[in-house]
């Protein structure tokens, strides 16, 4: 009887992780459409192909290298060995975590859009997903005892292990800070600034961008809730905190940006980025505040990035994922406290240190990889290619062939 229940629970967990994996996989479609809508028409095909191919390459590399690094498990035995005992629970765990890992190139893609060469970018994605990300992931969630484990160095030093429930730091901050290095080394799009004068480049299609945002928001509930990784561990609090933080992000962006559709649809995402780390600890009202602050950070820092720093980060992935992810890691140490209605068990010190280590790790790894690839083979399209658009330059077709070719 207990045996039957255990077997059923095991199957339930496989289902649980599979559903989570599929929901986060669908988010990758969201990344694609967010980028399609934000880039110019001549780069829409490239946005779509990049996201899909990065995902496929990430699958292979994380299967063979990344997941083993982070968790010490690999799947090179026979199908029987790797699946029979637990109905393939470890396999779907891999699938679920892959969809997180593959978010790294998907995040970066939006920053470097409209001017990056195809294959160097794929190679860089492979290195990030196969090596860079899993090492940090392992330190927080996996077998590399350093930050997130109960008995890790940081747990001792900071009073509690580094807490990042669903990846504000591990995934988003990491992705955003890796991206900003790439964006800077790549340089701005031709014509973005001429003689110090800013010529903002208009986005192509707001409904497409909104579709991407919707796909991301919906899937995000899988990202956060299924981070429990087992049915038993599920927490309704995580779901409602995600919801409240998203609502906070939308409302704050609406008000601060004076009703700008780009900021509002990204504001929802800012809230969701920031809530990941502490979504299991916050009180819903705390989550609301965390999301609202994230949206303000996003709006203000995107404008600052564009107008002062002059970094041509097309989708604003550094403020969105980098800064809001960083904020999320730290906020977890604030609003996670019992004093602020949270469940406790976290310290601001540990959160701060863990978050900063993540950020420095990303900057270092990002600079090394981008610098090497840039020096070795180059990462940028020629000016002529950029001018005709990456669709024609790389894929030899544009997004609306009937229109350009004629019916």
């Amino acid at each position, binding site marked *: 009887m207990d045996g039957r229940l255990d077997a059923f629970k095991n199957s339930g967990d496989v289902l649980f992780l599979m559903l989570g994996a599929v929901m986060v996989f669908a988010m990758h479609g969201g990344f694609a459409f967010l980028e399609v809508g934000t880039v110019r028409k001549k780069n829409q095909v490239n946005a779509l192909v990049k996201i899909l191919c990065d995902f496929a390459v990430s699958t292979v590399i994380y299967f063979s290298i990344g997941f083993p690094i982070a968790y010490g498990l690999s799947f090179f035995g026979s199908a029987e060995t790797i699946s029979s005992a637990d109905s393939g629970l470890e396999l779907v765990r891999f699938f679920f975590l892959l969809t997180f890992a593959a978010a790294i190139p998907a995040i970066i893609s939006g920053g470097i859009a409209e001017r990056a060469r195809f294959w160097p970018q794929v190679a860089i994605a492979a290195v990030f997903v196969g090596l860079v990300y899993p090492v940090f992931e392992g330190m927080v969630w996996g077998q590399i005892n350093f930050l997130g484990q109960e008995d890790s160095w940081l747990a001792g030093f900071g009073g509690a292990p580094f807490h990042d429930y669903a990846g504000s730091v591990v995934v988003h901050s990491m992705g955003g800070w890796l991206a900003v290095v790439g964006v800077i080394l790549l340089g701005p799009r031709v014509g973005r600034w001429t003689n110090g004068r800013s010529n903002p480049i208009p986005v192509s299609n707001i409904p497409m961008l909104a579709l991407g945002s919707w796909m991301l928001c919906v899937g995000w509930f899988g990202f956060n809730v299924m981070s429990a990784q087992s049915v038993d561990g599920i927490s309704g609090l995580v779901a409602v905190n995600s919801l409240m933080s998203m609502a906070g992000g939308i409302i704050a962006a609406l008000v601060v940006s004076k009703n700008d559709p780009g900021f509002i649809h990204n504001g929802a995402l800012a809230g969701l980025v920031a809530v990941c780390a502490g979504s299991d600890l916050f009180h819903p009202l705390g989550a609301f505040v965390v999301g609202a602050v994230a949206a303000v950070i996003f709006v203000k820092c995107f404008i600052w990035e*564009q107008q002062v720093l002059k970094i041509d980060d097309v989708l604003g992935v550094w403020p969105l994922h980098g800064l809001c992810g960083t904020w999320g890691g730290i906020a977890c140490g604030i609003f996670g406290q019992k004093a602020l209605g949270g469940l406790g068990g976290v310290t601001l010190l540990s959160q701060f240190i863990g978050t900063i280590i993540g950020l420095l790790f990303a900057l270092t790894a990002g600079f090394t990889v981008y610098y090497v690839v840039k020096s070795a083979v180059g990462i940028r399209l020629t000016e002529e290619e950029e001018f005709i658009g990456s669709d024609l330059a790389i894929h030899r077709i544009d997004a609306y062939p009937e229109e350009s070719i004629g019916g």
Partner: protein
Amino acid sequence: MKRIEAIIKPHKLDSVKSKLNDIGVTGMTITEVKGFGRQRGHKEIYRGAEYHIDFIPKILISLVLTDDLVEKAVEAITETARTGSIGDGKIFVMPVEDVVRIRTGERGSEAV
């Protein structure tokens, strides 16, 4: 024969077309164009960036007519396309030397 080109505000197309029909104009060709003139464009704002849009959508009506209809057509267009505010547009009258109807090969004023 003359050719008339009238640049008008898009929402006036329907009434101009009807009026031209009434006075006996049986054919015309229209093009979506953008105009720049005394009429101010507008400003758009997106994610903190401002965009100034100087070109305003207009409709270009082009007509080829026999000489006797020209004055009537000009009046008809002027009357119906006028709103009184800046940007109502312009009419240009130009010479045409020959007209051919492709279907029949007719030429000159028969072909109009």
